[in-house]
């Protein structure tokens, strides 16, 4: 009898699971993993059928996302125990959490591994030369480069700054994050669980850039808002699957922007980012793994154009950047007539053609070119401006 019950239970498990998967409504997206899940229609009878069946069953597993979160939380607790030991014994300043991520000792901040300049010199050089080449062809424009100092290069900040300044054309204005000089500064300017600037870091970065470009009438902070119910598990937490007690609050600065006409990928939109939906309480709060940073400030697009009519007659600026500039695009745009923000990673996919920097600068009457980037920008081949 016991054997019969045992066999029956095992049989029920191996039948119930696929039946529950095949006959329930499919999930399209995993919020925590930030990817599209495989559906039945994606499975074809070909040489990859086994892999696809596996992925399908895993993606559509009942309570799959919840179970993965529980597993990852427990895994991170186990790592946490080892980390506490390392921390107590002062073995390391950055305590490994796995996947190239670390916890800054005696804090909750998740940080990247230190990136030694010597390992990335070649990549940096290629990128900086592409900027120099562009400047060579447009010497009548003002060029600016802003280097964001973050957790990966903080230990080598001076080296990176010297290197970039040395390799950039001397006529290109260059500045590096002036407010980030040590780990205490870092904590004030960055999220605990995300690689982006927090609200204070965003504003300090904007002020740095504005000062570098000698912008008059810097936009001032008019207020602050905290979205109490939001637990922002940033990119680093999502990579680790760490959805436990360490998260960021969503606290934002408020500004009085001038009226702006905004186009995203050449289509007019009401706004960049969805701040209004947050204020109106329309954004579902408490979603584990939701990228609230992108939701609030705006996500990455090939081309964003911001026009401030009241600045007609003022200069036009072209900004090359990535997601770091998302919270400050409108701040910078407040001082220009037309502001173009280009994320080169998405240009070709969006417009089906390679980006032609020379043509763009001339056709859009660009007066200033600004490059905003950190370690991952300058070391990446997709940053090359051609």
């Amino acid at each position, binding site marked *: 009898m016991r054997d019969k019950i*045992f*066999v029956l239970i095992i049989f029920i*498990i191996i039948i119930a699971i696929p039946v529950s998967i095949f006959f329930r409504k499919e999930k399209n997206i995993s919020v925590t993993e930030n990817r599209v899940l495989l559906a039945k229609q994606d499975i074809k009878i070909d040489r990859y059928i*086994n892999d696809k069946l596996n992925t399908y069953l895993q993606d559509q597993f009942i309570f799959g996302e919840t179970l993965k979160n*529980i*597993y990852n939380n427990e895994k991170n607790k186990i790592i946490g125990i*080892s*980390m506490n030991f390392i921390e107590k014994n002062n073995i390391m300043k950055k305590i490994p959490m796995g996947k190239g991520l670390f916890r800054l000792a005696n804090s909750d901040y998740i940080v990247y591994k230190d990136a030694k300049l010597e390992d990335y010199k070649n990549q940096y050089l290629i990128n900086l030369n592409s900027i120099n080449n562009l400047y060579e062809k447009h010497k009548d424009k003002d060029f600016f480069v802003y280097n964001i100092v973050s957790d990966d290069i903080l230990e080598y900040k001076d080296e990176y700054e010297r290197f970039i300044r040395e390799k950039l054309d001397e006529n290109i204005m260059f500045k590096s994050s002036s407010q980030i000089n040590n780990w205490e500064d870092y904590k004030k300017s960055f999220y605990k669980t995300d690689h982006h600037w927090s609200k204070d870091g965003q504003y300090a970065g904007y002020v740095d850039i504005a000062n570098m470009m000698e912008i008059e009438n810097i936009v001032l902070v008019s207020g602050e808002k905290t979205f109490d119910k939001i637990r922002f598990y940033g990119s680093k937490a*999502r990579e680790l*699957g760490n959805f436990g007690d360490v998260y960021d609050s969503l606290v934002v600065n408020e500004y009085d922007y001038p009226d702006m006409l905004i186009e995203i990928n050449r289509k007019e939109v009401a706004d960049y980012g969805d701040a209004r939906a947050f204020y109106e309480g329309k954004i579902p709060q408490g979603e584990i793994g939701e990228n609230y940073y992108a939701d609030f400030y705006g996500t990455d697009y090939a081309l964003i154009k911001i026009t401030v009519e009241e600045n007609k007659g003022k200069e036009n600026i072209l900004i090359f950047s990535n997601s770091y500039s998302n919270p400050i695009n409108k701040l910078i745009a407040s001082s220009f007539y037309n502001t173009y923000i280009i994320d080169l990673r998405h240009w070709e996919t969006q417009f089906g053609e390679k980006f032609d920097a020379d043509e763009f600068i001339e056709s859009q009457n660009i007066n200033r070119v600004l490059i905003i980037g950190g370690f991952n920008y300058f070391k990446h081949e997709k940053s090359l401006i051609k």
Partner: protein
Amino acid sequence: MVFSSFSFLFIFLPITLILYYIIPKKYIKAKNIVLLIMSLLFYTIGEVKYFGIMILSIIVNYLFSIKMNDKNRKILLIISLIFNLGLLGIFKYLNFLILTLNNILRTNITTLNITLPIGISFYTFQIMSYVIDVFLKKVKPQKSIINVATYISLFPQLIAGPIVNYKTVENELTNREQKVEKIASGFRRFIIGLAKKVIIANNVAILADAVFNSNPLELGAGLIWIGAIAYAFQIYFDFSGYSDMAIGLGRIFGFNFLENFNYPYIATSITDFWRRWHISLSSWFREYVYIPLGGNRCSKIKWFRNIFIVWILTGFWHGANWNFIIWGLYFAVILIMEKMFLLKILNKIPKIFSHIYSIFLILIGWIIFRVEDINAILQLLINLVTFKKTNLSTFLADNGDVLYVVPFFILGIICFSPLLKNFFKYIVEKTNTIGLYIRDIMLVTIFIVTIIFLLAASYNPFIYFRF
């Protein structure tokens, strides 16, 4: 397809069970056909292009064995061995031979663009054991090609063993038990094997890989030993786990395969270790190579020759690379020394020292086995001998994931010996039926936990943000 995958657990296995068990037990031929079709499907899903090789092997060897008579048996055996070893040679060893010739003779022969068919080492040896046994008249040739094909392609042991002698399953091919007790026992064994592989092996592998994928020049002695132990656990729990699953699945379908592992890390000598590790392979080499060569019933020189031949072949069987041959030779030398005098010494000293002696040599062996580059092996051994210091901070900075491995490492230490099994056996004896129910509840729990581990391994966040 592998046993530790969702497609096997939740699609292939339930379908096979239903198809197999809806057929009444008296229709054994029909059941064999189901097993054959499902086994070929199991193989094809993983290896579409080499399905033909499998079918060819089955047909050719069936014909060789069925056509054997007193006049032609020798020639048919030779042709069969050439065919089987030829296939193995082409797919597994030809490129190694080409590369070796290029190195020695400074030629520039292009290697072939061929991949190793999954399981070819296992099923080739299995086929050869059948043909040889027919030749030696130890078994009668199986007249039904379905039965031969079922024996050769049976999915529980097709891709990773154990190597099943035809004698073991000869009767079961035509007459199998179909009892619930056996099916339950099979599932229990399967679950234990699955847990060993998914929970222990897959996790300690993180540590082993972190160590052995690092630059050998930078590895300290302490870290190398830890990596070796981690790899020892990985390979044991992976391989024995897979064997457990194979034996369990065999039992579910009415077959009784022989044990393939017997707690090898409690061995008191290397001789003892090889009686406990991959038993089906060492038995195969003993029966079909060592004994025909004369075994130990010959002069000492021939005896040593026989040992060297068997162990070079054993090493070579594991992989087409020089480190595997060196690994085989390494054990050949130790085994000879044990047979000559060491075993006598080991039998006299306290068991703890013979355990330490065995573990030490086994771990060195695993380093040679794991690290395919000869220069890297030498460097690691030098680091061990010179007690090179370990820079733990640098290692952890590059391999933070290993911090997660600690509890699985501890689990490995608990499970590598029969202590846990004996403990549960004792509890069951003391508590009778209650203990058996508790055991089953634990096994169901372990099964569910293992499924969660498999699910969690698919966590794959898309992080576009890194830029």
